[in-house]
């Protein structure tokens, strides 16, 4: 089994918040609280979760745009977490990022030629006419016209700007790209274009992706494997088909149940969870999901469940699923029944 292109081990990032008099009562925002996963070459890992779960922070940590407090990031087996200066620069060429907001992620005062060409310049990879040639090629690659080189961002639509962002990310020939909610700000029809482009590029060039989104249907479309995050931790990791066919963690199931299907024949009661997404400043003890969990046991409020491989390639952090083989396991949820009028069948067996 070849080395994964990206490996993340126990990544941790807490932000200190100073409150109260004299700096006392300092709290920390546990943005990422021990996250581990691997991404193989050519695959897409989808990272899904709601606001405040830490998924964007994970992306920034992998790219070394934020310094981790603990844990490691390995790129092709080599640790990148402590790197600085030139060594970091060399790695950066190979790990790129596309951000969410096509409006603010492009400098409005730079020509497209400069925006897309800059990574080549900065890394000493090309200059002058060679640079312009490569920028033009890249623009064509992402479905834009070559004469867009001498235009400014405001002359483009949201979808086109996102293509420019993608061109900028790909021009140094990276192996790994982090997409942080790349289509959330786009209309449905434009989103479709961009998602198709992202998939197409991966098929042709073999890129590896970390695709971050809160939108399960988008994640499903682009990912091979999916990790679900809640309050700084991964609660479930599985190949895409398995996750959707049989979600194990109660939070994953709630996410799926909450999603309104674009099909009136599939109306179903949406709200399975009570309460709001808690703040990463006040993380509940034990399993962080227990206050909202419809199947919480006593144990859940005191002991934090570890992320365990309950089936080959299926990881869950849940006491109800731990230590059991899934044939008799935990809560069986028939996702195909979510389309029926009644609430989905949820059976729980005792531990």
């Amino acid at each position, binding site marked *: 089994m070849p080395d994964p292109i990206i490996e993340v081990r126990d990544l941790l990032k807490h932000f200190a918040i100073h409150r109260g008099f004299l700096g006392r009562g300092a709290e920390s925002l546990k943005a990422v609280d021990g996250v581990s996963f691997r991404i193989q070459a050519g695959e897409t890992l989808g990272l899904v979760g709601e606001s405040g779960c830490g998924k964007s922070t994970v992306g920034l940590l992998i790219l070394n745009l934020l310094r981790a407090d603990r844990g490691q990031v390995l790129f092709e087996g080599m640790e990148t977490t402590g790197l600085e200066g030139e060594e970091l620069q060399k790695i950066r060429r190979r790990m790129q990022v596309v951000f969410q907001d096509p409006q603010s992620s492009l400098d409005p005062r730079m020509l497209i030629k400069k925006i897309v060409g800059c990574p080549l310049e900065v890394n000493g990879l090309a200059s002058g006419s060679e640079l312009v040639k490569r920028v033009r090629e890249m623009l064509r690659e992402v479905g834009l016209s070559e004469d867009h080189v001498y235009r400014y961002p405001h002359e483009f639509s949201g979808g086109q700007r996102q293509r420019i962002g993608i061109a900028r990310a790909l021009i140094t020939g990276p192996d790994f790209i982090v997409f942080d909610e790349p289509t959330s700000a786009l209309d449905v029809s434009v989103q479709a274009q961009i998602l198709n482009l992202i998939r197409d590029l991966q098929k042709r060039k073999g890129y590896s992706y970390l695709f971050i989104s*809160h939108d399960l*249907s988008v994640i499903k479309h682009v990912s091979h494997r999916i990790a679900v995050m809640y309050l700084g931790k991964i609660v479930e990791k599985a190949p895409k088909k398995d996750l959707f066919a049989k979600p194990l963690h109660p939070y994953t199931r709630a996410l799926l149940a909450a999603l*309104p*299907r674009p099909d*009136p024949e599939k109306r179903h009661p*949406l709200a399975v969870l009570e309460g709001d*997404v808690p703040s990463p400043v006040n993380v509940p003890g034990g399993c962080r999901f227990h206050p909202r969990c419809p199947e919480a046991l006593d144990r859940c409020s005191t002991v934090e469940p570890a992320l365990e491989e309950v089936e080959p390639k299926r990881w869950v952090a849940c006491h109800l699923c731990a230590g059991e083989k899934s044939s008799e396991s935990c809560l069986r949820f028939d996702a195909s029944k979510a389309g029926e009028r009644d609430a989905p069948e949820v059976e729980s067996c005792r531990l």
Partner: protein
Amino acid sequence: MEEILLDISGLSVRFFTYQGIVKALEDVNLIVSKGEILGLVGETGCGKSVLARSVLRLIADPPGKISGGKIFFKGEDILGASKRRLRSIRGNEISMIFQEPMSSLNPVFRVGNQMMEVVMLHQRVGRGEARRVCVDMLSQVKMPDPDAVLSKYPHELSGGMRQRAMIAMELSCRPDLLIADEPTTALDVTVQAQVLTILEELTRQTGVSVLFISHDLGVIAQICERVAVMYAGRIVEISPVRKLFSNPGHPYSRGLLKAVPQVDEERETLNVVPGVVPGLIHPPGGCRFHPRCEEMWEPCSRIVPHPVEIEPGHQVACHLWGSGK
């Protein structure tokens, strides 16, 4: 025959800007019946928010102007109504909830203050009674500890709670029509689920009609009974919700439905509607969708298509229907 609550006919709205005149709405016809939930779906720039605001005459003038058409609410002419009459309609007979609850709730006043103000103004009751009504409404939207919420400021509540407070506030005077402009777009999916569930329950209980605006086809499919699809300032299709999804008539509707990634299906590639939404200063002639339409033919660039009823209750504005094709 359902009683007609809101009757919009031939509505056109223009914005006069330095770059030119934006033809934001062009000849829009729409009816909302008593007790129904009508969805208004479309992408950015299609004019759905402009339409919503026109109903309550909330379009800033300048630069906006209602350049044509009529709006009748319960038989009353809205466009000709006095400012005084409008004030008594807004929040009382027609209510509106917006996308960003942080910007529609006044951040410097407590939630209770804002909610009670609406009740006292329209119902002409004192503080005590107003407070009682508000607490009651907040419990109906399943707000934990309604009394405490009344003394909080908007920023002390989460997004979902703020939206629920807004819903409570807007329904407190038992309006006949609620206009919801992308009410759950800014919310997380589990919170959205709660808000939609509450909205559905309340509308069923109170019988209020809802004009539900969204770009999210999943939400529309879940909540609405009838749907109007808008494109570039015009309504291109109106249909009972099931028929729209099972038998979309307009090429734009069809393209849109095929472009939505689905959780329950496996799709290799998402269908793409080629091109981009046109600017509305110089919109395309004839059918505004024609430059992007794969089934465009001769009259499409010249003649504006009129709605044709392709099955009961289902109208499509497209030359593929009628006109002999």
